[in-house]
């Protein structure tokens, strides 16, 4: 799934970057710590015509805007069973291939439609389609999201998320789009329902009475995730794990992963995570659940290798080099000479990476806390 932009760098630069990132601790080009994110600018509520909107600009100039609109839709009845009658605890899983009750399964994934627009790319381009699939998969993974859209047995909300990348894609846009989507969903509000039961729904005209899709109350009696998921881009060079990679760092990655996490508020997890509701001073310990890990083909695989001095005819070596010698020369790694990484991710590295993301006080916690703090004005 090579959905990354090809970054043009010389073999000498690539070798230098790789060497710098392989040190302990790694020296990143802009001097950040391995788990430090670049400062970003975030705001919500920029589009009053939508149910929720957000805009995030990264420090490298990439910018994305997400708008959420909701429309009331009649629920399809399937096979005589009235839709929405049975809601299994924990929700139904993703729509593909899992056996579950009648209409809920089809209803879940159909009630959310997510489209991604990237300037210059068609919407059926492979890269764009994958981004849209990854973002919506993370959203629907726990199956509980669709429950928030239920109005009554005959109607539900259909949520349209339109993700726009404003700047041309200078670096892999997945983390930017994911954070912006997360923020837009946090800011989304639905009008308050005034009708009762299964009658045709009508709503309160007062927008101030509208309630958030993801309410902020700390009451953890609700069984759904209190927050939408977030997807992070993580890469590894040797044994170093690096978060929020810039495009030149991605160009030398041994392995790059997109990790989706969400809060886990199932019953078992809430008792395990010692949440004390009365103690307002203590931050609520959040237990996180890994939703998905996807490997991303780093652009490093497409880079041409450097030529070691011994084989460089411009360096004085004779051009009449025998073929087998040349082949063995290529197979060995010469220090200072760039070679595209071969092979996949080491399992130990993957495990360490997941651990780092999910641990208490780890990266995912920090991100979710920081996004929480954004004013939803």
């Amino acid at each position, binding site marked *: 799934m090579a959905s990354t932009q090809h970054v043009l760098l010389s073999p000498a630069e690539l070798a230098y970057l790789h060497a710098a990132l392989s040190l302990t601790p790694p020296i990143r080009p802009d001097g950040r710590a391995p788990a430090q994110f670049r400062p970003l600018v975030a705001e919500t509520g920029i589009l009053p015509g939508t149910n929720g909107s957000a805009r995030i600009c990264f420090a490298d100039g990439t910018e994305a805007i997400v708008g959420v609109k909701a429309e009331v839709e009649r629920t399809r009845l399937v096979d005589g069973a009235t839709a929405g009658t049975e809601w299994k605890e924990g929700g139904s899983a993703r729509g593909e291939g899992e056996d579950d009750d009648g209409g809920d399964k089809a209803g879940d994934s159909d009630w959310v439609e997510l489209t991604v627009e990237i300037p*210059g790319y068609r919407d059926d381009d492979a890269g764009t389609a994958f981004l849209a699939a990854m973002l919506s998969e993370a959203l629907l993974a726990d199956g509980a999201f669709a429950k928030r859209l239920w109005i009554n047995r005959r109607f539900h909300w259909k949520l349209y998320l339109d993700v726009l990348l404003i*700047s041309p894609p200078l670096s892999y846009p997945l983390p930017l789009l994911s954070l912006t989507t997360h923020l837009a969903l946090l800011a989304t509000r639905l009008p308050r329902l005034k009708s009762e039961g299964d009658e045709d729904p009508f709503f309160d005209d007062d927008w101030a009475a509208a309630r958030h899709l993801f309410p902020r109350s700390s009451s953890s009696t609700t069984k759904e995730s209190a927050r939408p998921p977030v997807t992070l881009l993580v890469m590894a060079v040797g044994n170093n794990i690096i978060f929020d990679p810039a495009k030149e760092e991605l160009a030398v990655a041994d392995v790059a992963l997109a990790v989706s996490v969400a809060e886990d508020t199932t019953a078992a997890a809430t008792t395990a995570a010692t949440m004390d509701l009365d103690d307002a001073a203590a931050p609520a310990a959040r237990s996180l659940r890994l939703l998905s890990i996807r490997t991303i083909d780093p652009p490093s695989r497409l880079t041409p290798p450097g030529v070691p001095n011994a084989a460089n005819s411009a360096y004085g070596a004779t051009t009449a080099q025998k073929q087998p010698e040349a082949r063995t020369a290529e197979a060995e790694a010469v220090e200072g000479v760039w070679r595209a990484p071969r092979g996949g991710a080491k399992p130990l590295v993957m495990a360490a990476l997941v651990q780092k993301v999910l641990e208490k006080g780890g990266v995912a916690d920090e991100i979710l806390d920081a996004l929480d703090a954004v004013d939803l004005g």
Partner: protein
Amino acid sequence: MPLDTSAYSLALLRVDGRRWNELRRIHAQIRTQAAADGSSYLEIGHTKVMCVVTGPSEPGSRRGAIGSTGGGVGGGAVGGGAAQSKGAEVAVSIVIAGFSSVDRKRTARGDKRILELQSTISNALAASLHTHLFPHSAINISLHVLSQDGSLLAALINAATLACVDAGIPMTDYVAACTAGSTSTYAANDEAADPLLDLNHQEEQELPGLTVATLGGSDRVAVLVCESRVQVSRLEGMLAVGVDGCKQVREILDRVVREKGRRMVQEGTVEKGVGLNDMDVD
């Protein structure tokens, strides 16, 4: 009906409280995106658009930015041939977000209306930009529509102009655009109907209107688009009102650019130039 009610003839106020010759609130900013060559953000009332300009740069290397409609280059002076043009090629791409209108609507790829808008804007800017200074290059203009409430083409043209000024592309003058309409429908056949300036969405749907763009504050019209039926006797009045509105728009755009420039000079980002007043003969 926005104007058929008696309210108009009594107080001569439109639904949003404006008189016949008042523009809506225009808010504009340039340099909204640091990574791009030129960028701008423009609001006319509730119509909000963003524009990003890349270039002039090598054509082909930015092929991706040409049109989300796949294949079709939005207008420009180049024919189908592979020959290098004598001037820069202006390629426009427009993305209308699904959440821009009241009902969420996904615009199909290759939508004719979008293609036409792209072509119009490309021709309008090519008329003003000094493209002969950059042969063998391309200027890519990428527009995003965030919210629509009438006067879409006018807003797009203004935003594109601002972004090109921000990118430092030499041009003859600003291309300023606005819409004008008439207070009664075609069917009413009212010869004495007043013209209106700057139509919002509701007015655009029900009343005849046109979009006009001029080159700077002069009377030279660069763009004139009228997609509704109107008696020709009313047309001149609408056009005059529109051209006058364009003058006002040009002033507003100019103020935005000057303010930005002033700030840059004050902060030392840009060195002060020579005063216009002390151009003495040596």
